[in-house]
């Protein structure tokens, strides 16, 4: 048993820290210092900087342009980026469609799409949920009708995060309506500039334009843009959920959030108050426990083991703790939490984005499989409880 990183890994951590010290542009650094909200252009600016360093896709294999880091180094890199408050990159290309194309795509698809995901030249969004298909994703109704060398798409996708900035969307669509619902779905890639595609942004409760409804009206998609077998889209989607599960706990994000809570509490003169201090300590203790669970998964991954039962709790508990951190930040702010976000002069710089993030973060227990869906899966697959 050894809970410390190896000397090599510690050297790598120092390398990451020192690089971060130099590479973060002044504008991003200033925002990171007060945990301000990053705009899409800043996210993409940071994407390109990481790309230049070769670290934009730590988990990609070298043959597709990944940096060839070990599982532990990948973890360290991600954690250090989170701890530094760097902008979070869009996951849709790097963590979702990219790995799907690597696993299921043709060599032509890999050549066409992967380099531009890596460089950030093409931005992706995700077309999974529909107005009538949320947790019951397989009941989706967007249709793809066979028309010679193409499919013709009709339907509506929703919660297509940042679709208004995206060049491409990956969608689950119904290619066969005559079979069991999971068996008639395909995974297709659609150019957002294709005639008939329209993304309409809507505001989230955090007042950010993160969500969109994306409409498809007679959209022609070449058959070469189906990833994986025709009607085999459900398998592709399921495999995608298994990628990089060790990172989902986002312990670094929560650590950063707790650090911010402490800074706000200190500014309000609350950090010497035992009751407040204890509340913060309780959350930090929960986070340290989760971090140990995360380390267990990581150490297993470093040995090439499949994620164990403990990994299934990472998203479930990690998302809750992240929410609680912002809830606590709001509570520490007290009356200042009444102020809506980005109002310089009304609340301190450090507090500007808390309200918005607190509101939007209610999404973390909903997206990527809601907590209730996670629990259904754990009940069935790990505890072996009978189906309803």
């Amino acid at each position: 048993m050894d809970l410390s990183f190896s000397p090599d890994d510690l050297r790598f951590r120092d390398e990451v820290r020192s690089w971060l010290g130099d590479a973060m542009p002044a504008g991003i650094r200033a925002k990171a210092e007060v945990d301000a909200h990053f705009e899409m252009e800043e996210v993409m600016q940071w994407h390109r900087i990481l790309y230049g360093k070769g670290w934009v896709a730590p988990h990609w294999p070298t043959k597709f342009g990944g940096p060839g880091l070990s599982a532990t180094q990948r973890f360290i890199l991600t954690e250090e980026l989170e701890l530094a408050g760097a902008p979070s990159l869009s996951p849709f290309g790097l963590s979702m469609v990219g790995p799907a194309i690597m696993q299921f795509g043709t060599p032509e698809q890999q050549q066409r799409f992967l380099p531009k995901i890596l460089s950030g030249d093409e931005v992706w969004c995700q077309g999974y949920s529909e107005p009538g298909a949320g947790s019951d994703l397989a009941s989706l109704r967007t249709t793809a009708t066979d028309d010679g060398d193409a499919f013709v798409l009709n339907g509506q996708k929703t919660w297509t995060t940042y679709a208004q900035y995206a060049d491409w969307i990956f969608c689950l669509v119904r290619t066969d309506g005559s079979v069991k619902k999971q068996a008639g779905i395909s995974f297709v890639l659609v150019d957002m500039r294709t005639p008939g595609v329209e993304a309409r942004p809507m505001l989230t409760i955090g007042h950010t334009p993160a969500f969109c409804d994306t409409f498809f009206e007679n959209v022609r998609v070449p058959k070469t843009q189906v990833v994986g077998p025709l009607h085999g889209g459900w398998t592709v989607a399921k495999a995608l959920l298994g990628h990089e599960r060790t990172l989902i706990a986002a312990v670094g994000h929560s650590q950063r959030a707790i650090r911010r809570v402490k800074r706000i509490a200190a500014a309000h003169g609350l950090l010497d108050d035992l009751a407040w201090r204890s509340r913060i300590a309780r959350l930090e203790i929960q986070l340290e426990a989760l971090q140990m669970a995360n380390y267990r998964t990581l150490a297993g991954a470093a040995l090439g083991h499949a994620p164990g039962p403990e990994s299934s709790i990472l998203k479930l508990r990690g998302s809750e703790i992240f929410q609680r951190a912002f809830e606590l930040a709001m509570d520490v702010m007290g009356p200042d939490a009444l102020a809506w976000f980005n109002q310089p002069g009304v609340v301190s710089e450090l507090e500007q984005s808390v309200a918005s993030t607190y509101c939007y973060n209610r999404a973390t227990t909903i997206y990527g499989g809601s907590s209730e869906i996670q629990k259904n899966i754990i009940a069935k697959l790990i505890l072996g409880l009978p189906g309803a």
Partner: protein
Amino acid sequence: MDFQLSDEQKLLRDSVRTFTKQRSPVTRFRKLRDHAGVTGDGWDRGLWREMGELGWLSLPFPEAAGGFGGTLVDVGLLLEAFGAALVPEPYLASVIHAGLALLRAGSAEQHARWLAPLIDGRSSLALAHAEAGHRFDPQPRSTTATRDGAAWRVRGAKQFVAHGQHADVLVVSATDGEQTQLFALPRDHAALRIDRVQTIDGLGAASVHIDGVVDDEHRLAGGDAALALDRAHDAAAAMAVSEGLGICQAVLELTVGHLRTREQFGVAIGSFQALQHRAVEMFVEVELVRSVAVLAAVRADEENDDLRRRAVSVAKAQLATGGRFVTQQAIQLHGGIGITDEHDVGLYFKRMHALGVMFGDEEHHVRRFAASPSFAPAP
């Protein structure tokens, strides 16, 4: 970073599991508990002796003191299995809490006198430290030791001395006005009055009154007694988490088994989503307790105070909340049968409460964590 058990550790774990299964299943604890009032025993000296012969009682002691030179990770594996089977022998109280205090504070001669018989399983120890009104402070305040010629006059009262009602030797803490002293006293020493009390977990304990003259040879004279108490406390807290992990795992298995087999409305109740989600919440807490048990076992020997205390407090606080949650939910999911004394789930529930309290409860460890230098480093 490595969470793998060595081959020796796997062997130890497997042999302890086999032992508890064959020799000390939960039914044995229940029987001893039920007869404790009649025969005066809640444990078995014969089995203790066997544990000595197996080398288990020597695990945490260095070879120089006649021990095996193992780590608290090794001990944690043993206590996890003991927890799952509710083994009533006083490993935590005797070997870890009292034993490690005696190891640190005692001289080589005193080790030979009091540790060697413990290691062989010929005797058992208890640490009499807790005083009324002082909650979880490991250091003595109201028990005093004053010089009386070449000897000491020791006076005070100790409460909830785990295994104190049975131990052959009691290690008693007292303050001489300047520093902490520890005295190792045979149970029939004239200065001691030992009264049995019943405890929530059914193991019982002792109220100990000390009033009399104690020869200096009983004073532990090999090291800093205050430090020895602190470190023994941290080690015992860490090992309580391992024992609690065993309980968590056992009640989760019991509960999932019940959900699979118990039928209502014509189906297994485990098919109901409300109950499934409650069981999953239990599972989450068990995995977190498992994670912090490793953290505490590895760090409880750490010399860096901040690192050690932080880890132990994280683990003990997590056990207190998580272990309580898991055992409470286990009762809820068992329904009415869970409230009966005849069902094992209540035995686990009560032992878990004791483990949550001993060596510092959640509040104590949250406060200690919040007071640590690393909690709020200077900007």
